[in-house]
């Protein structure tokens, strides 16, 4: 299959993830969408790594996965503490920085 097939899938996934981040109000779903975006990018990297026969793509994927994992840890900890204090995790309620 040509590389463009993989890239199109990656783009579609990325777009779906982006829209998900912007539209959904549940922070867990937003994080899932962010993960989707990150993995779409991973897909692009792997596609190029295979088609260009270079190993740098693999290394980049490692880095991205690590960062994604760390980010999820921190993000989930924040969400849990918000839930504990407010009992409600709608991001639209978090507008104390308004003004």
């Amino acid at each position, binding site marked *: 299959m040509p590389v463009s097939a993989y890239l199109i899938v990656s783009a579609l996934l990325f777009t779906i993830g*982006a829209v998900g*981040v*912007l539209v959904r*109000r549940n922070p867990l779903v937003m994080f899932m969408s962010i993960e989707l975006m990150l993995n779409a990018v991973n897909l692009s990297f792997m596609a190029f790594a295979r088609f260009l026969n270079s190993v740098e793509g693999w290394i980049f994927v490692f880095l991205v996965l690590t960062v994604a994992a760390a980010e999820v840890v921190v993000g989930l900890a924040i969400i849990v503490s918000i839930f504990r204090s407010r009992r409600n995790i709608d*991001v*639209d309620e*978090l*507008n*104390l*920085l*308004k*003004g």
Partner: protein
Amino acid sequence: MVNLTPWILAAPLVGFLALGLFGRLLPRVAVSVIGCGAVAVAFLLALWQFISMLSVAPDARVSTVTLWTWLTSGRLDVSLGLMLDPLAAIMLLIITGVGFLIHVYSIGYMADDPSYWRFFAYLNFFILAMALLVTADNFLFLLVGWAGVGLASFLLIGFWYTRPSAVAAARKAFVVNVIGDFGLMIAIFLIFGASGTLSYCGTLGVCSGNQDGPLLTHAIDPLHGVSSNVLLAIAIFLFIAAIAKSAQLPLHVWLPDAMEGPTPVSALIHAATMVTAGVYLVARASAIFTASPTALVVVAVIAGASALYAAIAACAQTDIKRVLAYSTISQLGYMFMGEAVEGYSSGIFHLTTHAYFKALLFMCAGAVIHALGGEQDMRKMGGLVGRLPRTFWMFVVGALSLSAIVPFAGFWSKDAILGDVLRKATDTGAPAWYALYGVGLLTATLTGYYIFRLLWLVFGGAYRGGAIGGHGRNDTAVEGHSAIGDPLASVHEPGPSMLVPMVILAILSLAGGLYGLPWNDWIGEFLSPTVHSVPGLPTSDPRFWISDIVGLSAALMGIVYAWLRYRSGRASVAEKDGPAVVFVRSGLGIDALYGAVIVRPLLALGRGLHTLVEDRILDGGTRGVGDLFAAGSRALRDLQTGYARNYAIWIFLGAALILLYFMIFPQLR
């Protein structure tokens, strides 16, 4: 000869600084001693150097002392140099001599004033500035002295600064004077442009040699190559300065109002010395004026017009000091008349005699005002001859000198001037100079009339005033202790500090003409090395006798008419305030004219500019910039919604735009 001018300036400077800085803390006696002592020292030094001048040859009577060089810039080299020459010597004697007498007079006159020390400080400052004016050896420091006396005049007219009328008068005097300062500055620019230097040596040919051997070089004619138009312009601008300072038409309006100041100020500044600075200037620059006959015609026109106008206005005044103020304008007109026909020495001669009798007249007026507790309106005076006999007789001496009756000093000087005018008229045959002579005669008649009118209104007839307040100064009306019985019971002659200077000036008003007698014109000869005047008429010339007799009769006619009108109490009947009289009293409406044409439009313009430009454009502009930023920030504040999703949208949009940019312009490969 000795040149002591630096010390003559130093004495009043020390007095001014001492009194200005510490006068408030010193007792009155100390203030009087320092104030009068400074001027006394200056006078003695002036006298000493004058006497030493007499022992050297006339050609060697110029000496310059350069104190320090102020600036050198290209061709211009200006230093504070003080020059002693015959003209400066005479002026210094008058300034310090009459100044000293007035300082002594002020001890008595200002005795009740709480700001006694400030008065003497300002007087000393004035003496300093005036002395600088007459001894400067270049036009720039002349200007410094010129501005200094203008400042002294402002400070002293507005001495009682809590009175709005005094403050307004002081401001008016200063504003009109600045017009003259402007003229002098333009003249200085022109002089520098024409001759590359500002010193009297380089421009007027009045030079001295080195410090050891003063040498006067007649032969220099530094203005030789200068075009006549430029000379005319220089002369005109110098004369503009003289018009403003010496209160000639049309810049005379400040002098009658300047009578708001204390009477010693009127005597010193507005009679004897400051207003004569213009006469001094024309005499000093006589070389320029003589080289420009058109300028002399201008001087003659203004002088004649001022003399006649002021004499007319003086006839209708009700305030005793305003009569004398207009009289000063008129007499200054005479001095300029003499200078207009190149009789500079007769102008200076009249300057000296006028200093004597005018200061005397002001002092007598001050004595009357003081005795009446501040009353200055002649309609409320009368019958004072019984209570103030000595003042009366000295007033008579001053009046006779002013009216130029033989053998008083004023006669010799005024007839020297009129003789010079007649000489010019008959030599050139031009009707204009005959007209000037006629104006001089008419003014002489009016002079005799108005001063004797004053005499009779004040001293003759019966007392027309009300109760007299305690003797104090013009601005307080302390309730008096008279009323029942004789309302004049508290009126008394002035004390010795006021009386002695008056007596000295009375003697001078009588004998002061002896140095300018037609058959022995000592003053003319004394001035001749540096001030080149055309000599006066000799006694062998029939015109001399014509001029003397006609002049004397003109004056006597005025006096007789005043006697007929005002003698023994007819005054209250004779003075009717018809519209013509009120018009003349207001100075023939010139103040009103200036008010309508110049003052009110300028004030309206100022107010208009304030509302239009300052409030709307300038303040509005600065406020507008602030408002702009405030509005902008209000708009931008709406971006901060606090919702993370909104921020996320903006991030995505930004990223998309950047991507688009790189897709369209792929140069960053």
